[in-house]
C-alpha cells in the first residue's frame, strides 16, 4: 500500500479564518497609523574588523 499524502493547499482554513496581523490597513486613510508595525533600528556600532 502506498503511504498516502495530502496536499496542504487542499486543507481548508477555519470558518473563522482571519487575515494575518497587519494584513488589513485602512485604505482610504490619509496616514498609515492603524497598525503598529515592526519598528527596527539598526546601526553599525562595530567596525568590520571587530566582528568575528
Amino acid at each position, binding site marked *: 500500500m502506498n503511504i498516502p499524502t495530502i496536499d496542504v493547499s487542499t486543507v481548508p482554513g477555519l470558518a473563522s479564518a482571519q*487575515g494575518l496581523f497587519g494584513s488589513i490597513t*485602512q485604505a482610504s486613510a490619509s496616514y498609515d497609523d492603524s497598525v503598529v508595525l515592526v519598528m527596527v533600528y539598526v546601526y553599525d556600532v562595530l567596525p568590520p574588523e571587530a566582528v568575528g
Partner: protein
Amino acid sequence: MKVHPAIAALRRSPASVRSDHADSQINLEHVRLEWLATDAVRSVADDLALYARGHSIGQCPALRELMDSHATASVFVDSLCQDVIRALSEQMLGEAPFRFRVSHGLATLQLLTFQGATLSLAAYEPLGVGSNPSETALFCDRAVDEIVIAGQAKARHHAIMAEGMVKSDTIELRPGDTLGLRPLIEMREIVDVERSLVILQLTREPDRPRPTREVDLQTGAILRIASGDKSASQSVMALSVLGALKSYGALDVMERTALNAEENLEVRWEAVRQTLGLGAVRGVAVLQSLAKRADDPLRQPAANLLNQVLTAQPDLSRLFKEPM
C-alpha cells in the same frame, strides 16, 4: 541609483572612519541613556511598568500628569529632542537611538516600552492634498491615550455604539488636547494636518490582542478581520514555512501545537494543516484526537476535516480502524 557622498565615503572608508561613525552613534546612545536616567523619565518609566501590569492611568501619577498636562508633556519631549537634535547635527549619518518608523507624512519614535505598554512620539506632516472622508475604520484591541504637543489638525473620532452602528464626529486637534480611546470600539483618524501635528501617545495592548476589525462607517458592518496578535501570526507563518520546507523534524512541535488547548486557535489549525501535509498518517491521528475532545473549539472543524480526508483517501481510511 543615487548614493549620498557621505554614505559612499563610509562604504569605501577604512576602519578608522567607520570607527568615527560608530563613536558618534555611541554618543547618541549616551544621549538616550542620560535622558532615561533623568528623574522625570524614570518616574514615567516606573509608572509605565505599573500601567502595563493593569493599573489605570489614575493610579500612575507621573504618567497621568504627563498625559494630562501640556506643560509637563512638552518639557518631557523637549528634554529629549533638544539633545538628540544637537547630537544629530554633529553627526550627519547618526540615527536617533530609538525604534522608529517613517511612512508617508508620518514619523513615529518609540520612546519607552514595557511589555504591552508603549509611549511614543508621533509627527503628522501636512500632505498638501485634499482627502476624501474614509468609508471604513479599523478598530484594534489597543487602549490609546494621546496629548497633542504641537500643531493643528482636523481628525475624526469613530465609536461603535451599543447597537453596532458607528458614531463619527469631526474634531479639531490643538496643543494640549487629549484623547482617550477604548480598545476595539473607539478609534481616531487624522484627516487633514494644518500645521505639523506632534502627539505623545500612550498605548496598551493585552498579551493576546483580539482581532482587528475593519468596519463600514455607514452601516456598522464588519468588512474584514485580521489577527491582532503579532506573535500568533508569526507562528502561523513559521508553521507554513516549515511545512513548505518539508521539515519533518518539526512534526513533533506541530503535533504538540495542534493539541495545545492554550495556544491561539489559528496557530493550532495551521499546525493541523501542516501536520497533515508532512505526515498524513500523523495528521489524521491528530484530527482523531481533536475530534474526541468535548470542550475543544477545534472539535467540530477537526471532525469535519477528518471525515473529508478519510472519504477522499481510502488508503488512509484503511489504516485507521476506527469507524468514522
